[in-house]
């Protein structure tokens, strides 16, 4: 095997943790099979991130310094990645399954002539196949999938692997890319970023999530207090995104984000499969619900039956005191 190519997504001038997770996994496969790991960084801050990419195992770093890539359009990124695919002829192209990646991968697949195994929770190169496991049916089942194509794209669910520092050679390849040539006809007008709380959801080791049991600003404030005491990120169900209490960037589940923190606290959440699909791989799950028959308790490590408006302040206080 020659090389594995990893696209590293950035946010706020940092490499996303989910991208480092994918890079770590690829380093592991490459070490076993005697291959190189090449990565692509495309952003205004790409130069400053070469060292970090190397420290997580990149041998070659294609750094394309252009702030245009920070605002998201799919055409230029698909064009860039397909060009680098033709330079590298990688055995595997891997990337974190962010909304940005999902927006690009269909086009990239056709442009570069590579099939995709999308949204996988594990992947490997085995002989002449790329094999993977992917959750289906709102993550109720895990499907084993494979492709015998000479080169295959995988997009990877966040939290599927640990990000582990391991030095790669870190050779920088200055790749000149004609952005204007490939931008196409779409125009990015605006990005309205909507952050909830101080901690990024997909990077957090503790997540406190609100469901419809959180009914109003008072409930929100109680939840925020608990989250800030724990240094936790705030998540939400579709129900409280729909009713406007939380922005869609906080939504966890089948159509939202996938998280797998050390600790997930589900507050006033019933546990619909479409929500569970996004959090079932959390290490420890605490459920707080007034209905003892709520399905969320089937997934929880610890459950408390009761009124969240009484339990949240007590819990925040107990944590502050301990």
């Amino acid at each position, binding site marked *: 095997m020659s090389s594995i190519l990893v696209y590293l*997504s950035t*946010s706020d001038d940092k490499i996303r943790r989910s991208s480092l997770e994918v890079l770590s996994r690829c380093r592991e496969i490459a070490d076993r099979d005697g291959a190189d790991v090449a990565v692509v960084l495309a952003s205004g801050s790409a130069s400053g991130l070469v060292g970090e990419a190397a420290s997580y195992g990149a041998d070659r770093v294609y750094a394309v310094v252009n702030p245009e890539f920070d*605002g998201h359009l*799919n055409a230029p990124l*698909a064009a860039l990645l397909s060009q680098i695919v033709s330079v590298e002829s990688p055995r595997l192209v891997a990337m974190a399954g962010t*909304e*940005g990646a999902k*927006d*690009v991968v*269909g*086009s990239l*697949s*056709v*442009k570069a002539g590579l*099939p*995709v195994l*999308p*949204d996988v929770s594990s992947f490997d190169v085995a002989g002449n196949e790329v094999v993977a496991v992917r959750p*289906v049916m709102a993550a109720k*089942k*895990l*499907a*084993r*999938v*494979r492709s015998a*194509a000479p080169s*295959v794209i995988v997009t990877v669910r966040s939290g599927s692997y640990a990000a582990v520092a391991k030095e790669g050679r870190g050779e920088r390849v200055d790749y000149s890319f004609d952005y204007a040539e490939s931008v196409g*006809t*779409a*125009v*990015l*007008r*605006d*990005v*309205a*970023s*909507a952050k909830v709380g101080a901690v990024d959801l997909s990077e957090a080791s*503790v997540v406190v999530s609100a469901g419809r049991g959180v009914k109003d600003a008072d409930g929100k404030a109680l939840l925020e207090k608990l989250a800030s005491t724990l240094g936790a990120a705030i998540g939400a169900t*579709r129900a409280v*995104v729909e009713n406007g209490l939380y922005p*869609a*960037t906080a939504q966890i589940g089948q*159509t939202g984000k996938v998280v797998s923190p*050390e*600790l997930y606290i589900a507050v006033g959440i019933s546990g619909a499969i479409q929500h569970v699909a996004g959090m*079932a791989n959390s290490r*420890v*799950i605490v459920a707080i619900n007034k209905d003892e028959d709520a399905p969320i308790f*089937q997934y*929880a*490590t*610890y*459950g*408390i*039956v*009761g009124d969240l408006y009484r339990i949240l302040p*007590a*819990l925040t*206080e*107990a944590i502050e005191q301990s």
Partner: protein
Amino acid sequence: MVLNAYDASAVEEALVLRDQFGGHINLLLVGPQSAAETIRKALAMGADSATHLVYEASSDLDSGAISEILAAELSGAEYDVVLCGKQAQDTDAGLTGGMLAERLGLPYTTNAVGLEIDGGQIVVTRQGDSGRETILLPTPCLVTCSNDMNDPRIPSLKGIMASKKKPISSRPVESAPDNATTMVGFVEPPQRPAVTMIDGTDEAEAVERLVRELKNTSKVLQ
């Protein structure tokens, strides 16, 4: 056969656009004979006509193959916007829309939660990783729709009656393209350990027990 939630949102969005700006909505589906029922549902919502490309084993086809069949059907056709569901509700793959757009050479965007028309351009709001992105697309273009985009209407009795008279052009897919990926089988997801329910004489006692467990047993708190 149910109409996938994301596809239902795509149909709803098309209806809103047609009712505002005029035009014709044609449904396009690759699927077994029994999927005619799904088509009828979307016609009953208000779409004008449908093309059913009949392929019994369509669930064995991967996104690459499906998008090839769709692209063959649409190349040379005239349209302003192609709307797709952002993913299938069972496989969650989310690839067909983007692949189809690239095959047709169309600009596209995915995971749309809003769509408007402004001076002949399609203005799409998409849910991105850290916020909402507003993207302008010229026509023709392709947009994949999130179920967070709208609330698909329930067909009225009148709509259901009318749907029976709407034209469905039904043709077999003579030869399906080869799959480049294969689903080999299922494995059971790992079982989570049984829940420990925690109570106490009051909230204070219960949460104190919980915090002790989180510290001493699970070691997720310091």
